[in-house]
């Protein structure tokens, strides 16, 4: 029974496919999984948007949307109808073809990332040996879509937003990759299923998730910072900074195309949280050994929603950074921390079992954090603003 619950989607897929001739079965199986992914995540997107609006409202001591349905639960439906019935405006001087392609490309690249994410035991669309590589390749191509949108709109705000987005995403791609490299170093594999398998062990009922190691914890923090910047979420939401750029690279999009951007942004958030879950939080494995009877996909999606909640929480708390602060933070703090983390991960790998590696790795990382933190904070000399040309 437990086994059936755990594998229910896999079994369902096998059962549905079994009606087809044998030569069609592999292709039909893949199509079915793709359809499932393409349905589940937009549905989750609707839930997340409602959660975000309610959560932000509560953080600001408001009630949030409560007009459509009980407790405003049907708000996403109203939003969907609204965005679908709006006029689709293409600016006269826009590059129409690129303007049309940008949201499509964004959504495609964002969904491609799910191909290699294991969402439960045996629940992975393609178990690539270089899954992580494919994931990052797809993540990097979404930057192209963002720049296409900004460039083709022929609008200064869009272009500025797109420039910022590209600068930011490329800067934070580096720490994102480097923080994941530590996991790859320890696991010895780029396959995401293998990475989850490696964490799916228990000692005294506690899991061997990578976040519970010094290098894993530091790596997770750096990964979380980099993902927030990659998905253009607050406090790194400069590319769409409403107060200065209207809406950034999607200023000139309306109706369904805008909805696609919105969808792409949230689905990217799900997918990158899913990857973080896989890399550091043990993917679909249970947090305690006595809870292993709960279906694996429930664990995956609860960890995913927990990350989304943290994203919302951060958005409700932190103010937006300035462009120079953003860049300084990436290159002067996150990147060096990632490099130190690589050293710590290497030591962890070759120092063998025992308490010594805990002490050494933690000491290195804490020293690096404290040292770099002090160096960063000492430089803040706030005085009256001086202008070179004005005045």
């Amino acid at each position, binding site marked *: 029974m437990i086994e059936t619950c755990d594998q229910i989607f896999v079994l369902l897929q096998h059962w549905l496919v079994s009606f087809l001739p044998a030569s069609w079965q592999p292709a039909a199986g893949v199509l079915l999984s793709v359809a499932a992914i393409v349905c589940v995540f937009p549905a989750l997107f609707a839930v997340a948007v409602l959660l975000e609006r309610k959560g932000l409202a509560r953080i600001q001591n408001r009630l949030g949307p409560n007009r459509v349905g009980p407790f405003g639960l049907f708000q996403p439906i109203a939003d969907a109808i609204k965005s679908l019935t709006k006029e689709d405006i293409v600016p006269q001087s826009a590059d129409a073809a690129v303007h049309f392609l940008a949201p499509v490309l964004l959504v495609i690249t964002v969904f491609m990332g799910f191909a290699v994410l294991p969402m439960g035991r045996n629940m992975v669309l393609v178990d690539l040996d270089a899954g992580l590589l494919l994931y990052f390749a797809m993540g990097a191509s979404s930057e192209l879509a963002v720049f296409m949108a900004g460039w083709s709109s022929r609008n200064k705000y869009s272009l500025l937003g797109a420039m910022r987005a590209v600068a930011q995403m490329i800067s934070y791609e580096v720490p994102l990759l480097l923080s994941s490299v530590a996991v790859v170093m320890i696991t010895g594999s780029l396959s995401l299923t293998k990475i989850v398998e490696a964490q799916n062990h228990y000692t005294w009922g506690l899991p061997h998730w990578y976040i519970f190691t010094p290098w894993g914890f530091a790596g997770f923090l750096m990964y979380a910072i980099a993902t927030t910047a990659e998905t253009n979420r607050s406090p790194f939401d400069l590319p769409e900074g409403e107060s200065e750029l209207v809406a950034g690279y999607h200023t000139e999009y309306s109706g369904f195309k805008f909805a696609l951007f919105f969808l792409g942004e949230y689905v990217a958030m799900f997918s990158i949280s899913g990857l973080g879950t896989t890399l550091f939080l043990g993917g679909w494995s249970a947090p305690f050994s006595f809870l292993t009877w709960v279906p694996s996909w429930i664990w995956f999606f609860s960890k995913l929603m927990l990350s989304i909640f943290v994203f919302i929480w951060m958005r409700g708390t932190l103010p937006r950074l300035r462009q120079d602060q953003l860049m300084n933070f990436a290159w002067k703090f996150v990147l060096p921390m990632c490099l130190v983390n690589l050293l710590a991960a290497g030591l962890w790998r070759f120092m063998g079992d025992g308490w010594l590696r805990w002490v050494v790795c933690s000491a290195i990382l804490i020293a690096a954090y*404290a040292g770099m933190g002090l160096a960063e904070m000492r430089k803040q000399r706030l005085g009256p603003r001086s202008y070179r040309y004005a005045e």
Partner: protein
Amino acid sequence: MLGEGILKGMAVTAKNFFGSYFSAERLTTVEYPEQRIAPFEAARVFPFLVFDGADWEAGLRCVACQICEKECPPKCIYIEKSTDKKPDAVGKLQFYPARFDIDISVCMSCQICVEVCPFEAIKMDTEFELSTDDRFGGLLLDRKQLAKSNEYYHQIHSTEAAGVDARLAAEKAKADAKAKGAAAAKTAAIAGEGA
């Protein structure tokens, strides 16, 4: 320590998040169409014209001097001065606005018209639910729509209206005294002539 401020901030927002479910006094907003907050006395939205007495057309304090029209920064006031004179509330012959329109889609609620008016004729209203499905005609208010009684003014801005009334009464008393003085002098002069 780096990141300390972030953690403190996160604690504050978490407290707000959970607190808003447990204590109602945390919630700073009201559910507008059903619940309303009593308007503040200093609230001001768009200007209106004050009239004295019962008849709005006869009682308008406005004498069509057009100072407000000239001073209005966004130029949202349109006044047509009358060609004849009518007695105002005091009985004095005055020009009156044959046409007085305010385009509230242009008005920026700056209150400059109120400040410059020497006749206390234009004041700020507190009515804010002015949405209409006719964005041209519906937002261009004519003098009939703008005219509101002095009693209404007392109702929405009681302190301010009391001050205005006192000032007008003082002015009237002064004018009366002057007129009386002039009349007395005149009668004295006539009496002197007769003597």
